[in-house]
């Protein structure tokens, strides 16, 4: 089932085209990453999908609803973590959550229970009745996440959820995203953090200057954009010149990296890689391990940004 479908969404602010003809789909239960540098249009795209901004052209369906005409319903069934925590600093953590519960229409008898559960889940119960102004950035971010979940939404938009968090807090957020996926919720994750996206996202969309320049799994994107991934060979003893020479004469194969007992080759396909391995062994190399090293999302991302 499709949770989000965008068709040619576009929005300008004055002369700036923040989102330009963006089309994509997100399936229910998927963690979808939106990647791109600052100003690429990620936040504007979320605002369009949540019905907070109206597109100049194009349309979208979110949870089967049109955000332009049913914005209130879309927002009622989705949760948003904004780039800044946007919590009320003069209020306590409990008051922040109670306000969100009230405005999101959580049944009144459930408000106290839901608030307490979330305070406990995000380790805020000890300071639940203190003004949020005195909280650390990580605590505010945790409170903002709790608020985004207060009405048990089906869909979550998380805009830079780990920005400014320490490694332990970031890990907590990663665990939360995995837990949300396990619960069957759909998550749209905007991030600069490519390792994070690679670890968490089923598919990613890459934005540049408001345009969606790539869409797919990391593997699909790397296959489409980059040459075949390198082949790494590990030997029992340091690599000899004979081995390097033997490998170098295999058609299409080139040595990319040589380091002590390790040799990294560029091979256009699996047949060439097999020939190179055979040549290395034939030249006296005592092979311990061989395998392709997958391209990282970082390599894919920069290839895309350079192309854009």
């Amino acid at each position: 089932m499709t949770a989000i479908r965008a068709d040619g969404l576009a929005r300008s602010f004055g002369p700036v085209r923040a989102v330009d003809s963006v089309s994509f789909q997100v399936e229910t239960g998927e963690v979808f990453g939106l990647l791109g540098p600052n100003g690429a249009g990620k936040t504007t795209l979320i605002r369009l999908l949540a019905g907070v901004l109206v597109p100049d052209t194009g349309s979208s369906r979110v949870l089967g609803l049109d955000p332009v005409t049913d914005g209130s319903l879309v927002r009622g069934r989705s949760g948003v973590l904004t780039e800044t925590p946007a919590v009320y600093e003069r209020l306590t953590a409990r008051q922040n959550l109670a306000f969100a519960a009230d405005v999101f229409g959580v049944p009144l008898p459930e408000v106290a229970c839901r608030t307490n559960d979330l305070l406990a889940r995000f380790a805020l119960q000890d300071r639940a009745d203190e003004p949020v102004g005195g909280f650390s950035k990580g605590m505010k971010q945790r409170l903002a996440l709790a608020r985004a979940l207060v009405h048990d939404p089906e869909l979550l938009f998380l805009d830079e959820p780990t920005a400014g968090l320490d490694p332990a807090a970031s890990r907590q957020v990663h665990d939360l995203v995995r837990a949300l996926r396990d619960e069957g919720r759909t998550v749209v994750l905007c991030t600069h953090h490519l390792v994070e996206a690679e670890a968490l996202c089923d598919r990613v969309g890459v934005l540049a200057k408001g345009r969606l320049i790539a869409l797919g799994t990391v593997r699909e994107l790397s296959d489409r954009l980059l040459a075949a991934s390198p082949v790494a060979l590990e030997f029992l003893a340091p690599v000899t010149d004979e081995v390097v020479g033997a490998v170098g004469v295999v058609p299409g194969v080139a040595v990319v990296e040589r380091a002590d007992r390790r040799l990294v080759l560029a091979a256009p396909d699996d047949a060439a890689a097999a020939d190179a391995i055979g040549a290395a062994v034939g030249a006296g190399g005592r092979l311990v391990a061989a395998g392709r090293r997958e391209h990282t999302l970082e390599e894919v991302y920069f290839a895309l940004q350079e192309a854009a």
Partner: protein
Amino acid sequence: MNWRTVRAIAGKDLLEVRKNRIAIWSIVGLSFFLSVGMPLLIGLLPFGTGPESGDLGPLEALLDLLPPEMQDLPLGSQMVVLMLGSFLAPLFLMIPLMVAAIVGAESFVGEKERRTLEGLLYTPATDLELYAGKVLAGAVPAVVAAFLNFAIYAVVVNLVTGPIVGRVWFPTVPTLALAVWVGPAVALLGVSASVMVSTRVDTFLEANQLTGLLALVIVALMVGQGSGLLLLSLPVLLLVGLALYAADLVLIRLGAAIFSRDRLMARS
């Protein structure tokens, strides 16, 4: 319209105002000055022992505002009663106006400055519910402050004029009309104008400066009353209130009509 949402937004804003020491002390200071300080000052000045009689020129007509049983008081005492019962009365409207303006001006631009506006716009509240919540948040404390201050003002006026008049005489019918009929109208004027301004400017300072212009309405009433040009008798007050409520209605409808989540988000 979902009233739970409206109440939640208004309640949250009121809670924030209660925890905003600067706003609270501004309101308390203004209230104390107008409801306690001014009547004490006037009452303790030596007017009460002033001349027995004299010619007030064009202000003579003001003496008609005095209740019949006070027409025989010495002129100095009449002046004290006039000042506290009539001249200062419109100044009392500054309280609902300023409270409404302080809370209303904060409404949207305050959230924007504190970077909480985006979170609010992502709630399921409709544009109308958001606007209504903000208007309610400004109107409630303004009206409550107006009534409370009027009660305090009445007590202080009766205390300081007790030796002159010899009985409890305040509030008079016109001042009561001013408090219960015109006061809420002025509160709504302050909040409807300030919330509307708050959606269109970029800083709280701008919003506050623009809504400060509303004080001119009060100044106009005071000048009219003080100069004898516009005596705030009961019929006049009823008409002034009616005109203000009409203006409130226009401003609230206009504000709600031009309020747009999209525009607010695009500006932030």
